């Protein structure tokens, strides 16, 4: 049909720019609003818990034997005489300005402390989740494909040990065998004594910093120190990821479309990886994101055993020392990580699952 003038006028024209931008802007604003509300809620709950807990930040500062006058002076200095809600609003105002206060433990800004300890945890957790994903997913897929076989049994035992073995025991045994007896890995700490502070801290990630400095001896030493705790954390992630992968895959492999694909003569490789696995990616993203978030909280026991100065042991030490500024600061950061990982996994959903768009 020839295009008439009327038809030309009626032809759908491109939507105005605002029609494209507004939905994105709206989503972004809603997401930011959701982050803000969640964070404020988190800060409020943590703040209130910190105030009702039977710990005394004043005693932590002045010591057990201080006079009542000294105690009172610090009590007022900390603003503890004000109503809790007023204290909270003051704190919130500071947090908005990225000021988490001063640590009672070392008299440094909490933000500086977090900037120091969080990269240590980030590095450990990232390597750990890498091991967990790279080994856990194939193991889970293999166990599902060979359900009931010896491969499945081995995968089950591996996961069971990972679930049930206390991490401190496994950590100490790992240290004993691989560091103490075999000498294959470095001991507790991020680097050996000869490499302490030999490269400038740029990112706080010691593997990255040593690589940036081109100091490969230091890099190797740092790697020898991180490999064992990262493997340990990776193993616990592997246990979870492999079991979940197996479960998701079994569900897919029993679906009719898989039977159809096999009937059509599709290779088993394609059936498993191009069809079944493709459909569990979205679920796996959630599993991996949750595992990663758990690792980023900082595994306190792993950090203690391996003398790893991460955020888990930082928050724990702060809690035991009644250093509520540090506890609150650490909690906010951990909460933020959870939220960001959730958003990130939401974005990945959209990439892998067209329905989510």
């Amino acid at each position: 049909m020839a295009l008439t003038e009327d038809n030309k006028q009626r032809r759908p024209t491109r939507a105005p720019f605002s029609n494209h931008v507004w939905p994105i802007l709206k989503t972004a604003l809603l997401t930011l609003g959701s982050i803000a509300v969640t964070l404020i809620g988190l800060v409020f709950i943590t703040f209130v818990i910190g105030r009702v807990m039977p710990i005394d930040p004043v005693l932590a500062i002045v010591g057990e034997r201080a006079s009542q006058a000294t105690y009172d002076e610090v009590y007022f200095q900390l603003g503890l005489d004000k109503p809790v809600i007023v204290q909270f609003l003051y704190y919130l105002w500071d947090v908005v300005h990225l000021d988490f206060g001063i640590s009672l433990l070392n008299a440094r800004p909490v933000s500086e402390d977090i900037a120091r300890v969080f990269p240590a945890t980030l590095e450990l957790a990232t390597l750990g989740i890498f091991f967990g994903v790279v080994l856990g997913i194939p193991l889970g897929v293999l166990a599902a494909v060979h359900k009931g076989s010896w491969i499945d049994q081995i995968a089950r035992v591996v996961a069971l040990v990972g679930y049930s073995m206390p991490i401190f025991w496994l950590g100490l045994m790992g240290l004993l065998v691989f560091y103490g007896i075999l000498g294959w890995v470095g001991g507790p700490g991020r680097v050996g004594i000869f490499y302490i502070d030999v490269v400038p801290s740029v990112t706080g990630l010691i593997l990255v910093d040593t690589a940036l400095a081109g100091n490969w001896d230091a890099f190797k030493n740092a790697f020898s120190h991180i490999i064992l705790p990262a493997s340990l954390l990776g193993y616990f992630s592997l246990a979870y990821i492999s079991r979940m992968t197996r479960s998701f895959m079994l569900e897919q492999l029993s679906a009719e479309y898989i039977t159809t694909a096999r009937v059509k003569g599709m290779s088993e490789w394609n059936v498993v990886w191009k069809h079944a696995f493709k459909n569990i990616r979205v679920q796996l993203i959630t599993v991996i994101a949750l595992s990663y978030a758990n690792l980023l909280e900082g595994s306190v026991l792993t950090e203690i055993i391996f003398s790893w100065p991460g955020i888990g042991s930082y928050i724990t030490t702060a809690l035991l020392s009644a250093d509520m500024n540090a506890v609150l600061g650490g909690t906010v950061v951990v909460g933020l990580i959870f939220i960001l990982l959730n958003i990130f996994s939401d974005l990945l959903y959209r990439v892998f699952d067209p329905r989510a768009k």
Partner: protein
Amino acid sequence: MTMLSKLLTGASLALAVGVTSFPVYAETPANMLVIANRIDDVTTIDPAESFEFAGSDISRNVYSRLVILDPLDLEAGYKPDLAESWDVSEDGKTITFTMRDDATFHSGNPVRAEDAAFSLQRAVILNKTPAFILTQFGFTPENVTETIRADGNKLIITTDQRYATSFVLNCLTATIGGVVDKETVMANEVDGDMGNVWLRTNSAGSGPYMLDRWTPNDNVTLSSNPDYYGGAPAMERVIVRHVIESASQRLLLERGDIDVARNLNPEDIAGVSDADGIQVVDELKGRLMYLALNQQHPELSKPEVRQAFKYLVDYEGMQNSFLNGQYTIHQNFLPATYLGASDENPFSYDLDKARELLEAAGVENLEIEIGVREAQERMEIAQSFQNSAAQVGITVNITVGTAKQILDRYRARELDVYLGAWGPDYPDPQTNAGTFAYNPDNSDEANATGLLAWRNSWDTGGLTEKVDAAVVEGDREKRVQMYLDIQEEFRETSPFVIMFQQIEQSAMRDNVTDFSTGQAVTNAAYWQVTK
């Protein structure tokens, strides 16, 4: 953390069983000392503010003082350091120190009497937690420029009344007596803080070591001061690594990656005590474990009951079981190794004697509450006492809580009995005498929460005056005798059942010699160490 500690202890035991020897052994360099220690209590390294163990360890090695406790001869007491001599005025109120002329700060600036005066004035003016060690001599921010002053190479200190010279000098060996470089510190002053914020993480001393770096909860690194007036230390570098877990410290030590492990638990100490190349060194520390009876309680205030409680503690049973290697029996308020310390321990576990005393007091069916903080060894002591007390008809209810829960009630005089620990603040007998046996005003209104005698509502019955007299006695020998007498009376009459003194067991490679954690009187020193 109790459960955590139990779990880790269990794992350590498994480790102890699993390990007998290590085929691979590294060694730290001959000029380097590597120590594993818990350093998470370091809050500041400013000598005017530092009051924790690990922080004081740093300070002792970085800052020289007017007088020093020689780590190789602690029994001798204070000796000249930055002050090469001193004179005491006729009235005993003024001490004039003559400074040595060959000392320099790490910055290269000479150490002057002016620096020493500034350091002490600064500590008084800043008035941080340990300031009471100096202000007890009458120094105040208002008068300190007159009472502590420099004149040429002389430092002149004038106290508000006569004090025993040994008392003043012992206090100057404490961390707060560290002499800072005035020029360097004031160059880093912010908003009139006299360099406090800067000195929290930096150093300006003249001691045998210079602070390279302190990374909280990670490590402290020190380098030897080649210009140290006492001669450059043999260990050119000292690294203190923060290692919390005992089993990890043990592995590091057995592998040879560290020279000294300072926080091994009894199981790991037992595990390494027979290992090749490792030695275990015991040092008595200042912490005392004690029971305190509130004298507002009608039954606990009876003298016979106070005595009875001292026979209800199974001292040896605890020392030889769960406290093995960590605490030793000690029944006096001055820790062993202190000036005037007594080694008399007259009380033993004697239920018949306790029963007899309780009958004499007419006490029947007594029920009391013991407050104890949630620390493992304290709870175990409380349980042991509970069992003993039950055998003489006393019902003991143990209340376990956090520091806030228990200490708030203790400070408010609300507990029947408190079970806790006490450590001295400075290396002079007055530090403990002035709290255990001193209570000039026992009224509630006095609110002297810093005094243990007041917390337990104990009118010391003349001991307060004796403590006052001992603190001004100029003759050292007489002063020692006065404290021995005070403690003898205290043991018999006080409502305090002092039970144990802490032992620190350090495990180290056997090539390490002369390592000292400072016993009860001071902190760790590294400059005399050789390998």
